């Protein structure tokens, strides 16, 4: 049988902040994300399930990544925080309408 096989390799970075993402730590997160973008990664899963706290500086880092990724034809999706209060904040700011949201990393990866 004749067939043609093409392989697509899509690199997806799964980033899981384990500490507070706030005005002090967000620059470090940004730096890591910028480095990944710089290496050509354009698909990102930001897994917030183990992130204890995120302020608007952390949210700004996600928006910045989103803009850059979409410009490159990629996407940024989020995994919901476990903490109910943190979930409500993403809803309040309508981040859950801008970022595709998932309950776990596997579903998030499948979407990309």
């Amino acid at each position, binding site marked *: 049988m004749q067939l043609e096989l093409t392989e697509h390799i899509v690199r997806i970075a799964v980033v899981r902040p384990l500490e507070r993402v706030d005005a*002090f730590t967000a620059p470090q997160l940004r730096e890591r994300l910028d480095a990944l973008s710089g290496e050509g990664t354009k698909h990102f899963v930001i897994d917030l399930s183990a992130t204890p706290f995120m*302020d608007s500086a952390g949210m700004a880092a996600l928006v910045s990544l989103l803009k850059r990724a979409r410009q490159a034809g990629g996407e940024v999706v989020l995994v919901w925080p476990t903490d109910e*209060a*943190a979930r*409500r904040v993403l809803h309040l700011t309508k*981040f859950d309408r*801008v970022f595709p949201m998932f309950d776990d990393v596997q579903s998030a990866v499948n979407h990309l």
Partner: protein
Amino acid sequence: MLTEPEVRLVIPATHRHLNLVGAVVAELLAREEGLAEPQIVSYNVQLALQEICANIVDHAYAGCGGQIEMVMAVLQTPWRLVIDLSDTGRPFNPETEVTPDLDEVHEGGYGLFLARALLDEVSYRIHAGRNHWHLVKQLEGDRNAA
């Protein structure tokens, strides 16, 4: 400012130290028995405080340092948490405050919006040459439960 026993925290106005502010309020609330949704109340107050304090660092002091003073107490009838945050940076101009258009994402401009959404009162005034942010969170629940 407050008649109930109050707690006072003074920190350098740097992003590095803002985690102390949230920790103090979290522990103060942790001692309030019978609070409804304690985790959510605590998170919301911590986030609001973080936003107001980050604004003081970024806008009032514009990165030039100084101190932030926080005075807080839990008051009764009605049961509430009252916080006064003050600094000696440049004054806040209320006209610079705009409600963010939530149908677009932005890289900034969520701070005051979040603080106002998560607390019951956020007011600003200048007193004795200091900027003061007066914050109130109503506490709900059954104080005799525990």
